[in-house]
């Protein structure tokens, strides 16, 4: 009689799979995969789509609903008489849009311009503007419950703009709100 290969117990809800022996590398990997899969299939948790990006050494995020496009660096034309944070204007398929250095608004120093740099085309209502960032890291859903309120000790430029914080292996991510950024800019607070 041929015996069935060990398929492992069919685990139902609430039944934890056996912990692998630490020396069983394959078992550890399979366990990690199982845990990762459990996170993915947890579809009932409310999530928010976030565009995660880096300015200098700090990670930030913006709601995906407020980012119309992620654009590669393109020719930007300076406009005289603007605050230094305004990099200029660019053409987006026939529409002329402003481009601001987001780091200048947030008090975060940009890395030197590199090929990874990108422009987030922010959209709030009928207003659009490009925001230059150093690198886009990910576009991913984040479980709302994993967001914690912003700390009280955030420096002034960030204090009114950060709506939450969550952790990634690379460090904390400050979640921003595009509407607050646009409004603060137009009010002259940035």
């Amino acid at each position, binding site marked *: 009689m041929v015996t069935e290969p060990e398929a492992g117990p069919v685990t139902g809800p609430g039944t934890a799979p056996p912990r692998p022996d630490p020396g069983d590398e394959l078992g550890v990997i399979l366990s990690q995969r199982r845990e990762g899969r459990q996170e993915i299939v947890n579809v009932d948790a409310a999530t928010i789509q976030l565009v995660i990006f880096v300015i200098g050494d700090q990670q930030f995020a913006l709601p995906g609903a407020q980012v119309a496009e992620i654009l590669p660096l393109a020719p930007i034309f300076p*406009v005289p008489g603007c605050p230094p944070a*305004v990099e200029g204007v660019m053409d987006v398929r026939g529409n*002329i849009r402003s481009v601001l250095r987001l780091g200048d608004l947030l008090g975060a120093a940009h890395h030197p311009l590199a090929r990874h740099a990108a422009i987030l085309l922010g959209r709030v209502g009928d207003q659009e503007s490009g925001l230059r960032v150093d690198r886009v890291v990910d576009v991913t859903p984040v479980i709302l419950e994993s967001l914690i309120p912003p700390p009280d000790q955030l420096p002034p430029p960030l204090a009114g703009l950060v709506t939450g914080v969550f952790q990634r292996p690379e460090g904390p991510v400050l979640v921003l709100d595009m509407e607050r950024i646009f409004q603060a800019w137009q009010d002259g607070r940035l």
Partner: protein
Amino acid sequence: MKAPGAPATPAASREVSAAVGTASGLDLVLFHWGPWQLAVPASQVTGLGPDTDPEAPTVGDLLELPAATSDGGPNPPSLSRIRRLGLRRPGPGLGLRVQEPLRRVRLDAMAIQPLPPLIAARLRLPLVRALANLGDPAGAIILILDFRGCEKTSFIPGFATPPARDQSSP
């Protein structure tokens, strides 16, 4: 290029006057200053002449742009000749030094766009009124200037009326 202020034939004059300022498009005089491509509505141009007064204001002075040189500046020397552009505005006219090449173009109304709101909210120079994409070179954006309010917004010694003093300030 024909000088924008040069006398035109009656027929041509009628044609231009009908075209300028209509909703379908706008006649513009294009010029340069360093790497910037600039334009002014042709209706505000009164003439084009040689650069005879090196002390006259440049468009760079008005827009606080870096100096553009005719020898090794941002443009090749052949593109950097300075001309004097006569401009109509409230009060005395303005002779503005600009860089060649100059040309007159007609832009479709759809090609002319307002300043993006985040720029309009913080711009210190009301002279900059609109933007347009000429499509040459690829994607190049020009700044459209409007000198109708120049008297109030800019003070150039000898060329503009000094701004009125704020009576409430000490």
